[in-house]
């Protein structure tokens, strides 16, 4: 403790600044920690058909879920689909972000609108549009048939493929926007220096631009992955049984069959899976990031 001119004790500055963290802490407590504690508590209650939950406590919902081949399959499918959506969004989003960052064209603003367009339409409406496009008699299958490329319709609806396509479409902006900010912040003189030292365009991109854009790639990838594995409406409407994800299964447990303890356990397991996947990704990318200036 230090003292003011009047002699009153004053906390060190870094302690006095702690109050600024209070709003964030309260927000975290109310909207994150307390709900999670509530979910975790519910997941440990016994099941009952005579009450919301039984009287006792149990870990059986966890052991049942983690030894159930069906649930493990759904978890695996959810993570796999999330990873695939992330990869596709990165592959499709990077060139767009790069072009937007480098372009001085007057049409750039139009491209911005195109990038953001998936977010400008309501979720259910957008998903219904995908149903029209991907169904057996939809635009894709009718076009392929009219071109004579297929005799029988491709099964795009009620499969993981349909969900991956629709999620990649909607989450593309979440890759493009962080990447764009990152690419725009890279000093163009760095690339120019590489070029002036004899590096080809490809080598300059691979050795200079791409590594420097890793923070944007990392942020975009985490955003898309987390959003993909927690998406509900798109897999519920387009996934069917074969494309069912954990969020759909959790809703079925909680909302359709009113199994709050078992549903809460599934939700907790999925949160843990997401946390592990994101942590692994961060660890894997951390080494590359450390080399950055």
């Amino acid at each position: 403790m230090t003292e003011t001119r009047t002699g009153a004790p004053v906390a060190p500055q870094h302690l006095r600044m702690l109050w600024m963290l209070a709003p964030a802490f309260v927000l975290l407590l109310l909207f994150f920690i307390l709900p999670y504690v509530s979910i975790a508590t519910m997941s440990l209650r016994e099941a009952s058909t005579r009450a919301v939950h039984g009287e006792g406590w149990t870990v059986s919902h966890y052991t049942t879920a983690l030894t159930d081949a069906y649930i493990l399959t759904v978890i695996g499918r959810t993570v796999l689909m999330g990873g695939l959506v992330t990869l596709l969004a990165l592959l499709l989003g990077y060139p767009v972000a790069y072009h937007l960052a480098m372009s001085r064209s007057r049409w750039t603003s139009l491209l911005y609108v195109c990038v953001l367009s998936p977010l400008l339409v309501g979720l259910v409406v957008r998903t219904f549009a995908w149903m029209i496009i991907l169904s057996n008699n939809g635009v894709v299958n009718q076009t392929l048939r009219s071109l004579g490329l297929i005799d029988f319709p491709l099964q795009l609806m009620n499969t993981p493929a349909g969900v991956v396509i629709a999620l990649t479409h909607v989450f593309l902006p979440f890759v493009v926007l962080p990447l764009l900010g990152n690419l725009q912040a890279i000093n163009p003189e760095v690339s120019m220096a590489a070029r002036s030292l004899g590096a080809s365009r490809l080598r300059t991109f691979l050795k200079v631009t791409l590594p420097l854009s890793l923070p944007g790639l990392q942020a975009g990838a985490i955003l898309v992955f987390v959003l993909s594995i927690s998406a509900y409406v798109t897999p519920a409407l387009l996934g069917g049984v074969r494309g069912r994800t954990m969020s759909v299964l959790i809703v079925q447990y909680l909302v359709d069959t009113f199994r709050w303890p078992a549903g809460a356990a599934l939700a907790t397991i999925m949160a843990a899976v997401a946390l592990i996947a994101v942590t692994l990704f961060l660890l894997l990318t951390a080494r590359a990031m450390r080399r950055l200036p």
Partner: protein
Amino acid sequence: MTLTRRDLLAAAAASSAVLALPRAAAAQSTLVVPTYGGLWAQFWESTLMPGFAAATGIQPTLDVGLGRDFVARVRAGAGGSPYSIFMGNENIAAVLRAEGFFEAFDMSLLPNAAGVYPQFINPGSMGIRAIISPIGLAYRTDMVQTPPSSWTDLWENPEFRGRTGLYQIGNTGAVLLLRLVGQLYGSGPDDFDTAFAKLKELLPFTQASWSGEAAAALIRGDVVVAPVDWTEIMILQDKGAPVAVVAPQEGVLAFEQSFNLVATGTEKEAAHAYLNYLLSAEVQSQMASAFYTSPCNTGATVDAALAQRLPIIGDAMSQIRSFDWDSYVPEAAAIADRWNREMG
């Protein structure tokens, strides 16, 4: 202008008073009545609520959602439910009933229940199924040469092979169908082994989470036949879609909206008044005109044109296959799990 602390306090007090005004105005009744969205909510807002207020002087608050949302709110309310009257499909209401959230109606406060077909009044007055939406076999008139006339046509008509739509297990329609198939091919509505075995014969079939999704699959032509409720098909017909719905010879299924008195509610008298009004022949007729439900009151009438499109009225109400859901509640989780694993 300098704002003093006193000015600020006065302004804050005035603002609080203004914000409290709407709440004071709405405090005429704390009865909250749940209903569904779309045509239902429109009917409640435009016809039912004003009519109920005029008839009883009670002005309830409307809460639009899904039956499952209403369950969650009653459960979360624990000792203080936001509703005094619950509405939801009978199989969903049975869950809350098993958990002790409901109590029996005082039938002396429901004089209009005297006109209700007895099959819709639960034993011990523990719930009344007051809004009936029959489910028939809907089909594409332009894609099907032999229209269905029996539930067994789902298995026997080769035109339907691989082009059938069914509700998924999260929807009451799937559970209704399981129980019907158990009755038709097995030992009864609890013969789920037979029901699953028969429904697996229909694979691959398209699964719909709700009637609108089933209707959309019909319109796209992805499926040519599906059990769908009359309301959905009538709406499609009104829009000129080439679809029809028939009542199979073995009878129809129905989404039965069960009204129950919530034990932890605070407006039980108003809840009785509300249900009594809803059971009246006049309101039942209005609902049939508005969204094609089958009136549960024997005194309700529908005009000839509507009767032609909506055949499950009057004596034909006996064609509705109703089931006891209280015995199903302990089985529900296992049935859903089994569906997930076997109907892929």
